[in-house]
C-alpha cells in the first residue's frame, strides 16, 4: 500500500488524573502508541474493556491531546460517527440535523445542500419540522445516522455502532455503512465483534493495557482469538 498518509501518530501517551486533588495519581490510558493511517484503508481496533480503545478514537478525533508524542492529521477532517450530537429535544428535527452538521464542522451551505438527501434517507419527511421530543428514540437515531452518512469526513471513526433504528432501518444502515467502509473512505472501527472486524478491516490494531500489543491481519486475529 503506497497511498498517501492521512494520519500519523507517533509515540503518543495519554494520562488522566484520578481525582480533583493535585496529589492524586496519574493514570496512564495510552502508552507509546505509534501508527499511521493511509487513505482508503480500514483499521480495526480490538482489545478488552479498558484497553484504551475509546481514548484512542478521542485522540484521533482531536478531542484529547497527547501528553507526550505527536498526532498529525495533515489537515484532514476527522469525526466520530455520532448519532445525537448536541441534540436539543425542544427543536425541530430539521434544526437538530443542521446543528449536528455544524458540530461536525460543515458549513451551513454544505448542510442545506445535502438536506433533501438526509431527510429522504431517514424516511422522516412527514415529521421533519415537528419538535424532536415527539420522535421515538429509533427515529432520532435514524436522523442522526442519515446526517452522519451524508456529511462525509476524510476519516470516519466508528465506536461500536453499526445499524440503528427498527429492523428494516437497521438492515439498511448496516448495509450502507458497510458499503461506505468498503469504499475508499478511511475508517477506524472499534468493535468487540471479531467476525465483523475481520470482515471489514484491512489491518487490526490490538490494544492491551494502553499499548499496541500487535498490528495484525484480520485472518491472524481470527486464528489468535479462536
Amino acid at each position: 500500500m503506497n497511498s498517501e498518509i492521512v494520519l500519523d501518530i507517533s509515540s503518543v501517551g495519554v494520562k488522566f488524573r484520578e481525582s480533583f486533588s493535585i496529589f492524586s495519581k496519574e493514570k496512564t490510558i495510552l502508552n507509546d502508541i505509534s501508527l499511521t493511517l493511509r487513505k482508503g484503508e480500514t483499521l480495526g481496533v480490538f482489545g478488552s474493556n479498558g484497553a484504551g480503545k475509546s481514548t484512542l478514537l478521542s485522540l484521533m478525533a482531536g478531542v484529547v491531546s497527547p501528553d507526550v508524542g505527536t498526532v498529525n492529521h495533515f489537515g484532514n477532517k476527522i469525526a466520530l460517527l455520532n448519532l445525537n450530537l448536541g441534540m436539543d429535544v425542544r427543536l425541530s428535527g430539521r434544526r437538530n440535523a443542521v446543528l449536528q452538521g455544524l458540530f461536525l464542522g460543515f458549513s451551513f451551505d454544505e448542510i442545506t445542500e445535502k438536506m433533501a438527501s438526509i431527510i429522504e434517507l431517514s424516511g422522516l419527511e412527514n415529521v421533519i419540522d415537528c419538535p424532536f421530543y415527539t420522535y421515538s428514540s429509533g427515529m432520532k437515531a435514524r436522523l442522526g445516522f442519515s446526517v452522519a452518512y451524508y456529511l462525509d469526513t476524510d476519516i470516519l471513526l466508528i465506536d461500536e455502532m453499526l445499524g440503528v433504528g427498527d429492523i428494516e432501518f437497521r438492515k439498511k444502515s448496516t448495509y450502507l455503512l458497510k458499503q461506505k467502509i468498503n469504499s475508499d473512505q478511511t475508517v477506524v472501527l472499534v468493535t468487540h465483534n471479531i467476525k465483523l472486524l475481520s470482515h471489514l478491516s484491512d489491518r487490526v490494531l490490538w490494544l492491551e493495557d494502553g499499548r499496541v500489543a500487535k498490528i495484525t491481519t484480520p485472518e491472524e486475529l481470527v486464528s489468535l482469538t479462536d
Partner: protein
Amino acid sequence: MLNFWTLVFYKATSNLKAESKKTYLSFMWWFFEPMLLMAIYYLVFGIVLNVKTEDFVAYLLVGLVVWQWFFRTVTNSSSSILESGAIIGKVAISKIFFPAVVIITDLFKSIFVFFVLVCYLLISGYEINYAYYILPVLFVSQLLLIISISLWSSLIIPFLPDMKILINSLLMAAMFGSGIFYSTDLIPEDIKAYFYLNPMAYIIDCFRKVLLHGQLPDLIYLAKMTLVFVLFILLALMFAKRFNNSYIKVVLR
C-alpha cells in the same frame, strides 16, 4: 473559524426559539417580563414607600437593568463548560463555544430589556438627550466586561468547581457594591475612588448620567477600563486555547 461562529449563532437562535416555545405568549415575554419587574418596583418604591429622592424608581431601574444583564450572563455561562456534558468528548471544538452561546443568547434578550427601559423613561417624562449618542459605546463597554468575566468563570470552574460557590458570593457582593439600591451620593468622597474601581459601579453610573441627567461620562476613565476588559478577554482566549483539550479530562469524570 467562520463555521464556528455560524454554529454559535445557530445554537443561540435555536435556544431563543426553543425557549419561546415553552410558553403560550412565547417571545412576548421578553417584553412583558422586564415590564412586570419595572411595574413592581414602581409600585413598591414609587407609590407604597413614596421615596422622595429625585425619581428614585428611574434611578433604581437603570441600575437594575444594567446589573441584571451582567448577572444573568455570568451566572448562566459560569457552568456552561462544566455542564456541556458528553459533547466535548465527541467533537473537537473550542470550549469558548459554550460561554459564547450564553453570551449571545443573553445579549439578545437584554436588548429587549433596554428597549423597555427607554420606553419607561420616555413615558415617565425623560427626554432623549444629546448624550444618547454615547449609549452604544457604553453598551459595547459593558458587553466586553460581561464577556471577560463570563469567559473566565466558565473556563476556571471545570478545573476548580469550588469556585462556583465563591463566584455566587462574589456576585452578591458586587451587587451591593455597585450602587443599585442606594444613591451613590451617600458614599463618602474619600471612598468614592475605590468604589468606582468596581467596573459595574462605574458603568451603571455612566448609564445613569446619560439616561437620567443627559451628561456625558468621563470617557477617558471608561476607555481605560474597557482596555482592561479587552486584555482580560485576550488572556482568557489564550488560556482557552492552551487548555482546550484538558477539559475533557475534568468534565467527564
